[in-house]
């Protein structure tokens, strides 16, 4: 028991890497031995070779660039708007009473369900994609910001008022920081949703981006290997960006709020 | 309940100051050490070479600053943490794990949130082999011992802190343990509730004849309750001094003897 627990404490990461390696090895072997038909699900080595053959670095970089541009711009504005509306709804009762029913009505609609309406409003170009990615970030952030504002410890506000703070300074210097942990949770969820929405939007209606790259490969009867590599690339991108946002949040509030 | 009431109880004649004969020791701690291994591989000594003998039916308090290892020592007696070196024995048997006659009351009540008060107490009988109806009957009996018969059907979140800690005491008493190990059980309660529960605990101790080891931060709590007060020092944790409390119960804070001891303990703690 004891040596085992010490081993695992010292090497969480090593164990994780071993596990990942085993999984990849099992995949490779099952494709090579014919357990899985390589034409349908190629081994990692085959997939990478196929991708290297059919994709140039330039194509990948171009598609990657468009995906990142869309998701960052949509997410950034969606999260900002969500934070602003949520904070305002939590602070100004009148505005909250008006805005909240509308938000609660639209919130259960998944962002992807807005795609047809987005096309009706903005056409097939970039604005419609921007719009649904915006929504993907907006709703989680607005909800979290509002909840964060409503659950501020009233003692904090009273304490600040004893120092003469009121109005906008009280909001910006006390209420918003106090709501920051909830807001951060919303931002994290919003990022995940924006990213998922991005991929879907690129699959359904786009002519560039990583999502388009893989659906185009399938529609033109290309290589399954390219599709597999594309999926893994999108997954890795999501993982890395999510970790980066997590780290940024930790730098922002980690010292006083804990992990 | 089955025992004859021993109301005007004084400190036991054995074990005072740890000077009693070896065979009188009920809990024996010999050269106990505890070392925690860090993630980086370094070793932190938490307790160093602790020797202590506690007599049967004695009420002993551990007091000391945060980080002196008093909770670790309690957990080691409970069999919840192993001893890095040395040994701990109860009634001559080396402690190898929980379930050797130790009942434990934890700092934050540690009640199972999904069980009602009576079911939490009845949980203590799980390994007893008793029939379900019997478990329930005994659990209710224990709840009435701590004055909570009326709250039997409540979930922990529906009870005040004082009530939760009463249930926790009742649960610890379930298997009629010889030893009650209490880790700052009243630390989170308000002063009035705390005094109430202290009196209750003394009543139970006298009625049921338990050996109690009680961890606390409060000098006056230790003085109100214990036969002996064991003062621990930090870095590494060790016994610094043992104070016998030879004052009649109930103890009053206005008693000059109480105050003299308070001062003595405070001086020792602050040097």
């Amino acid at each position, binding site marked *: 028991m004891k040596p*085992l627990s010490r081993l*695992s404490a010292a090497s*969480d990461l090593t*164990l*994780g890497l071993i*596990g*990942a390696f085993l999984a990849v090895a099992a995949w490779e072997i099952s494709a090579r031995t014919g357990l899985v038909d390589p034409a*349908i*699900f190629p081994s990692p080595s085959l997939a990478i070779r196929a991708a290297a053959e059919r994709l140039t670095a330039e194509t990948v970089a171009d598609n990657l660039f468009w995906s990142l541009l869309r998701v960052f711009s949509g997410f950034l504005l969606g999260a900002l708007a969500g934070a602003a509306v949520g904070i305002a709804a939590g602070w100004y009762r009148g505005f909250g*009473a*008006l805005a*909240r*029913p*509308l938000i609660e009505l639209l919130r*259960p*609609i*998944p*962002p*992807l*369900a807005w*795609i*047809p*309406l987005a096309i*009706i*409003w903005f056409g097939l170009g970039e604005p419609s994609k921007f719009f649904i990615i915006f929504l993907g970030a907006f709703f989680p952030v607005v909800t979290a910001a509002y909840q964060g504002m409503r659950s501020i410890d009233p003692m904090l506000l009273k304490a600040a008022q004893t120092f003469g703070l009121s109005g906008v300074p009280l909001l910006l210097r006390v209420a918003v920081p106090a709501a920051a942990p909830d807001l951060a*949770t919303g931002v994290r969820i919003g990022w995940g949703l924006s990213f998922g929405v991005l*991929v*879907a939007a690129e*699959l*359904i209606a786009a002519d560039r981006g990583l*999502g388009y790259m*893989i659906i185009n*490969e*399938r529609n033109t009867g290309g290589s399954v290997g390219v*599709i597999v590599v*594309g*999926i*893994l690339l*999108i*997954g*890795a991108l*999501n*993982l890395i960006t*999510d970790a980066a946002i997590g780290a940024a949040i930790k730098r922002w509030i980690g010292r006083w709020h804990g992990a | 309940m089955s025992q004859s009431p021993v109301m005007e109880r004084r400190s036991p004649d054995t074990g005072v100051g740890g000077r009693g004969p070896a065979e009188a020791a009920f809990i024996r701690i010999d050269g106990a050490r505890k070392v925690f291994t860090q993630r980086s591989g370094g070793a932190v000594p938490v307790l160093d070479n602790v020797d202590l003998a506690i007599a049967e039916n004695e009420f002993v308090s551990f007091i000391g600053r945060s980080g002196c290892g008093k909770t670790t020592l309690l957990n080691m007696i*409970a069999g919840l943490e192993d001893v890095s070196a040395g040994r701990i024995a109860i009634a001559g048997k080396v402690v190898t*794990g*929980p*379930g050797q006659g130790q009942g*434990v009351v*934890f700092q934050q009540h*540690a009640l*199972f*949130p*999904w069980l009602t008060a009576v079911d939490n107490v009845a*949980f203590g009988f*799980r*390994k007893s082999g008793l029939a379900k109806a019997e478990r329930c009957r005994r659990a209710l009996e224990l709840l009435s011992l701590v004055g909570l018969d009326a709250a039997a059907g409540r*979930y922990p979140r529906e009870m005040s802190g004082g009530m939760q800690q009463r249930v926790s005491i009742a649960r*610890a008493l*379930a298997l009629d343990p010889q030893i009650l190990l209490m880790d700052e059980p009243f630390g989170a309660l308000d002063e009035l509730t705390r005094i109430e529960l202290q009196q209750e605990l003394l009543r139970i101790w006298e009625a049921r004849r338990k050996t109690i080891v009680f961890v606390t931060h409060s000098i006056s709590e230790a003085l109100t309750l214990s036969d002996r007060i064991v003062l621990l020092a930090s870095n590494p944790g060790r016994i610094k001094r043992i104070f016998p409390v030879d004052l009649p119960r109930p103890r009053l804070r206005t008693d000059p003897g109480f105050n003299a001891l308070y001062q003595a303990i405070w001086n020792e703690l602050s040097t």
Partner: protein
Amino acid sequence: MTRKLVQALPPLAAFTVLLLLWEAGVRYGFLKPYQFPPVSRIARGFVELSTTGFPTGVSIWSHALTTILRVLQGYGAALALAIPLGLVIGALPVVDKLTAPLIVFCRSVATLSLLPLVIVWFGAGELTKVFLIGYGCFWVMLSNVIAGVRYVDPTLVRAARTFGLKGLELYRSVVLPAALPRIFAGARMALGVGFMVIVGAEMIGTIQGLGALIMEARTFYRSEITIIGMLVIGLIGFAISAGLMALERAMLPWAGDLDRVRR
């Protein structure tokens, strides 16, 4: 009661004014009816949808039923696999550490990005949609079940150990119930993922289901039907999530505030 009514009045009034402005804006030509179908047109569309249906013969109810059944199949399969697996992995720290990065990665793979691959596997039929929903729900559920089991308050485990419980019995009577709130939270999150995925999956290669309905309606310039479809999707999602919450409250009366266990 009356206070609540009074409080609900201003937003209700504002909402009505908004709808009236909208209606008027279309009538007087400020808004294009195709882009902003007025309430009257949406109402007429709803009557058509629930009687004749769109496309003709497929009513909104049958679309909704198709979507719900797809979600439930994938969701049910995901839960049936993820719960037992998570309970096992969470109980074995070494296995948990071996699988953790793998699970994080699989969870990060955007579910709909699998669509081109899954079409190669199963064609564009039902199985593809159910599989995608299952994939999305599975990883969310799995990571929540594992976390629920792994992060049980250690004092509770200690308390149970003082009564001689260990091994499987300790797991069953303490770890499992303590993990339930997190497992329920995971089930709610997974359902949200399922609804998200189905809408996307139905937009490709089918004419049945709410996702297909709203996309088809757009192609035929029937924006009011798109809006009705969206509202119905939202309504179903809301109703099922509320149902799960009620179930949770009934099954875990001890857990108190449900919002505290999100994340």
